[in-house]
Every structure is written in structure tokens, then in C-alpha cells.
């Protein structure tokens, strides 16, 4: 097991900049997830850690030891692949034994280890089968087992369960988390599925366009997103955004969306007093934190018109139009409304977030403050 440090890591393919100078520390025994849309550089980052891709510039350390030039086979990392990558000509037993044979283990030791790992992953009765005769879930288990036989320093997983069906995926997710708790390996998990990343990881690194937008615990990422991208990427249905104008009127701080007045989030007060809030801001609120009322009231002050109602069973997702902007609201499972029906919305001010409309950076956000205090370790892109 090892701690991993990435230092100003770059990867260029010709003119394409896949990874653009990311730095992150992964603690020994941590489950770190690299999360981002396809093409964000997360797989390139993982392949550089594995040694399968050359590093354009920057450094990678395992336990403080520079491993840029170390060959993949000498890094003692194990990897589970999206496509499982089982050797089709070998049966399950030989697939598991393959890494051990490379290390020239004796047959007796190989057998002991293979049986042990097969026992842990409960695939002992599959050992004689060929990979082609296994189901997707079984192949994935074998792939994980093979990665585990060598007791690697770092365990890398590249979207390992994205080809499974929903039910199996849920089972495997719990299983992987359990495995990490029991074995305590340093694990890096690449995924585009925010649910997987949030459910599994100790910390999540959200990536976009070759940059790390934010590193934090799932709670930090969810509640204190560093910028608009992270806020919009995490959460299902995604966070709602409303363009607003900030102004001071008669000593009061006011947010306006055209004719609608919205209450300032209380945590932005100190920022407002310092004059650190620009005129154009984006207000963000998660669908779960919008309350609906049928009548206008003291609380329900924002007029909206129902666009569509989606009953999902566990909840009902209502899409509404607030003037020109479409918002999604999570309501009670039995909530029903007619198309074009009028609703009045209330935003929970403690749950609203403010972003700079130009740069997308979070304003008055706890994570953002920490980021500032630390001197900007996480390369937040201003675009």
C-alpha cells in the first residue's frame, strides 16, 4: 500500500491537452475517485499512474519515491478494466495465477493464493471455467480477483462496473466498498457516474477539461461545490441555476431575477459587506430544496408555471418555468399537477449557493474559502 502524489501532471497527445497540470495527494489506504465527463482526462491520469502512458511533464510519487521512469511491471499496481480484460485463452484459475507466474511463484504458493482470493470473492466454483462462459458480473469479479492476487501497492479501477446492469451495479458497488474496508488498499476509481463516485469514495476529485475542479469528501463536493461546473455535475436531478442581479438598495442586499426578488443566502452576508459580490451572479439551488405552494404566501413568493410532471415512484420531479428559466423540483411521490398550472416556489435561503456569473466560481462558499486560504492548490480554472 502506498500514498500517491501527483505533481503538476500534464499529458498531451500531439496538440490535444488531455491533462493540464493537476496536483493531488492521495493518502495511504484512501479510496479516491476521479470523477468527470468523458474526455476530462481522468483515464489518462489513471494510465499515467499505472505507467501505461508516458508523462508529458510533472511528477508522480509513490510513498514519496519518484516513479516517473519506473516500468509498469515494476510499479506493483493492479488494475481492473472497464472491459474486464480477462485472458481469453486461459481459464479463470490461470487468469488469477497469471500475475503470480510472472513473479515466479512456486506452483504450491500460486495454488494457495489463488484459492484464498477465489474464496474471498466467492468464485471458487468458477475456477475451471473459461472467461467466455462467464456472465458480465462474474467476469468482473474474476477481473477484480486477478488484480488482488498480488497484494498491489495501489489498486486502480477504470469504470469497472459500468457495463453491468443496474441491479448488479448496485450489488457490486456495495461489494467494492466492503472490499476496500476489509483490505485497506489505496484505491483509485475512475468513473463518469457521480452516484458511484459519491457512494464509494473517501474523497472525490472532480475533473473537467484536463483540470481538477475540486477535491473533497462527497459531502463537501455536494454541499460546497467550488464552482458552477461541480455544482451542476453532481446531483440528480442536477442543480438549478438562475441568473440574478445583485444590488444594494437602501442598505439592504438584494438579488433580483427580472421582476422577482430572491432572498440572499445568509452565509453570503460577510462577502456582501466586504463588497466581494459582483453585479451578475448565478444562484444555484438543488431540486430537493425548493418548496412548492399552490397559493402565493409569505414564503412562497416565486411564480412558476408547470411544464411537465415526471412521477418516478420514489419521488416526483416537476419541471417548471420561472419566466424564461426552466427549474426542476423534487416533490412528494404523490404530487401531481396540470400542465401550465401556476405554482409558487420558496427557495430555502440557507441552501442556495451563489456563483460569479462570469467566472463560475462559488461565492461565499466554505470550500472556496478554504481553497483561498490554502493558496489555490487545486488549479481552479477561470473561464
Amino acid at each position, binding site marked *: 500500500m502506498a500514498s500517491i502524489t501527483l505533481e503538476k501532471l500534464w499529458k498531451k497527445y500531439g496538440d490535444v491537452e488531455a491533462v493540464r497540470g493537476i496536483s493531488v495527494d492521495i493518502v495511504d489506504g484512501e479510496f479516491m475517485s476521479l470523477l468527470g465527463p468523458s474526455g476530462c482526462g481522468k483515464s489518462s491520469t489513471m*494510465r499515467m499512474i*499505472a505507467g501505461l502512458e508516458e508523462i508529458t511533464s510533472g511528477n508522480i510519487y509513490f510513498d514519496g519515491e519518484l516513479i516517473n521512469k519506473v516500468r509498469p*511491471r515494476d510499479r506493483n*499496481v493492479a488494475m481492473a478494466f472497464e472491459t474486464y*480484460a480477462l*485472458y481469453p485463452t486461459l481459464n479463470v484459475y490461470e487468469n488469477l495465477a*497469471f500475475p503470480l507466474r*510472472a513473479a515466479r511463484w512456486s506452483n504450491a504458493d500460486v495454488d494457495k493464493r489463488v484459492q484464498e482470493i477465489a474464496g474471498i470473492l466467492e468464485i471458487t466454483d468458477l475456477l475451471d471455467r473459461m472467461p467466455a462462459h462467464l456472465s458480465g458480473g462474474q467476469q468482473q469479479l474474476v477481473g477484480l480477483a486477478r488484480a488482488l492476487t*498480488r497484494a498491489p501497492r495501489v489498486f486502480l479501477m477504470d469504470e469497472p462496473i459500468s457495463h453491468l446492469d443496474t441491479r448488479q451495479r448496485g450489488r457490486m458497488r456495495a461489494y467494492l466498498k466492503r472490499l476496500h474496508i476489509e483490505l485497506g488498499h489505496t484505491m483509485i476509481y475512475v468513473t463518469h457516474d457521480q452516484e458511484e463516485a459519491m457512494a464509494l469514495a473517501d474523497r472525490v476529485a472532480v475533473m473537467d477539461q484536463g483540470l481538477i475542479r475540486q477535491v473533497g469528501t462527497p459531502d463537501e463536493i455536494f454541499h460546497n461545490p467550488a464552482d458552477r461546473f461541480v455544482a451542476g455535475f453532481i446531483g440528480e436531478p442536477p442543480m438549478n441555476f438562475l441568473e440574478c442581479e445583485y444590488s444594494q438598495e437602501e442598505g439592504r442586499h438584494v438579488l433580483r431575477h427580472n421582476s422577482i426578488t430572491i432572498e440572499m443566502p445568509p452565509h453570503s452576508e460577510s462577502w456582501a459587506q466586504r463588497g466581494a459580490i459582483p453585479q451578475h451572479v448565478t444562484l444555484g439551488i438543488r431540486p430537493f430544496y425548493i418548496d412548492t405552494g399552490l397559493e402565493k404566501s409569505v414564503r412562497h413568493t416565486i411564480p412558476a408555471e408547470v411544464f411537465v410532471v415526471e412521477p418516478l415512484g420514489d419521488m416526483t420531479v416537476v419541471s417548471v418555468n420561472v419566466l424564461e428559466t426552466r427549474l426542476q423540483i423534487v416533490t412528494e411521490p404523490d404530487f401531481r399537477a396540470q400542465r401550465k398550472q401556476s405554482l409558487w416556489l420558496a427557495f430555502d435561503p440557507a441552501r442556495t449557493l451563489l456563483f460569479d456569473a462570469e467566472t463560475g466560481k462559488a461565492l461565499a462558499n466554505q470550500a472556496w474559502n478554504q481553497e483561498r486560504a490554502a493558496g489555490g492548490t487545486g488549479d481552479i480554472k477561470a473561464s
Partner: protein
Amino acid sequence: MERRQVTGGDLVRYAIIFALLIFFLFPIYWMIATSFKAPGDILTRPPRWTFQPTLENYFYAFEQANFGLFIKNTLIVAVVSTAIVIVIGSLAAYSFARYDVGAGHLMFFILSTRMFPAIAVVIPYFVIFRDLGNTVIGQALSLGLDRLGALVVCYTMFNLPFGIWLMHSFFQDIPVELEDSARLDGYSRLQVLLRVVLPLVAPGLAVTAIFCLIFAWNEFLFAFMLTRAVARTITVGVASFWTQRGILWGPLSAAATVCVVPMLIFALLLQRYIVRGLTFGAVRG
């Protein structure tokens, strides 16, 4: 299972199949039949369907025309040139498939060496091998005129581009993750090639080898121009029955029959691999 009613469509279908079989197989039947006919039974009108079989033609081909030597020569040339093509070609194809050596230009250059007819290079080759045969190196490597080494070089030259292109597609079909995985599992690139890639690509290599062997076995032009007696191959040997006294149909048919049989047996033995190899890409999905 219930027996299906034979329909008119079935009859037409089988009639067409039967006609095609006759069309393709009759020449072979006639060749084999002729090889067992006495001279008086061969060029008769109407053709004689029943005759007293004789081995006279085979004795003539092997004893008078020294056909055993030709078969031996052909076998050596075909097997050696094919082996060279597979070894060099598979390594080249692998590097093209995985490292994109030459960014496609090199592969195109290799293909371009096949863009002229063989007849265009046979005279230069004749001159090259004539002169090479007089040098020490040429003699040591058996590269002169009427030497087997010269034919091996020519057939390798001709089969290599084809082999590289064919094997390139087989290598490309192997998921790169398998190799990544093996590299992480502690294997060097060469070990990955030998232990992971080659077992998977074996059917593809078998197919390539078969095509190369068949080409070398049937090649006529180079063998005709570059050999006289010692290194003569079967195709030239068969043609040599076209003599000033006329065409010796009996021995010619006997020799041709002997030529066909080894390839036939070979193809039947490897049929499983041929089918697997030709459908390699399709099956993997």
C-alpha cells in the same frame, strides 16, 4: 424432428449446387483420370470414360522427369519463405498495430511494393541473382541462379507485404487492455507478445501461413526464370512436359495430381483455423 416436405425450391437449389460442383470439380476429376490412362486412352474422340488404369505416367514423372526433386525443392522453398514471412511479418504487423510506426506511410510503402506486376521485376532479379551467384556471400547463402535461396528471397519479398497487412488486422482486433493488464501483471513487452498476444492471434497467423504457402507452391514465373535444373520447382516441372515431341498429357496429369494433393490435405487439416481466422474480426464483435 419431423421430416420436411421437399419443395420445388429445394430441387432447384440442389440442381444449381450440383451444376456448380460439376463445373468446379470436373477438371480435377479429368486430371486425375487422365493421370491413370495409357497414352492411347487419352486423346480419343469421343472421350473414353472407362479404361484400364495404369501407373505408367507416375513412373515416367518420377523416374524420367525427376519429379521427386521438384517436390522437395518446392517444399523447401515454400516452407522456408513462409516461415520467414510469419516471423518478420508478425513482428512488423504488431509494431504497426500497436506503435503506429511510420504513421501509416511505412505500411503504404510496403503495400506499394506489390503495385507492379511480377514480370516487371523478374529481369532485374535475374541479373541480380546471376551476379550475386558469383560472389562468396551469394554462394554461401545459395543465392545464385538455379539456387533455392534465390527463390526463397523472391517469395519472401512477394508474400511479406500481403502477410503484414493481413496480420496487422488480426493484431488490431486484440483489445489493447489485455496487453495493458499483462504489463501491469509483471510481464515485459516481449513476454506480453509471446504469452498473451500470440496465442490469441494464432488462427490469424495460420491463415496467413496458408496463403503464403499456397502462393509459393503455385508460383510459376520466378521459378521459370530463375531456375534450370537443380532448383526447379513443381510448376515449372509440370510445364516441362510441354516438349518438342508434343504435350505429354499422361505424365503432365500425373505430376499435376501430385502437386494438388499436399495442399488439399493441408487445407483440410487446417480448415478449422482457416474459418476461425477469416471470421476473426466478426466473431469478436
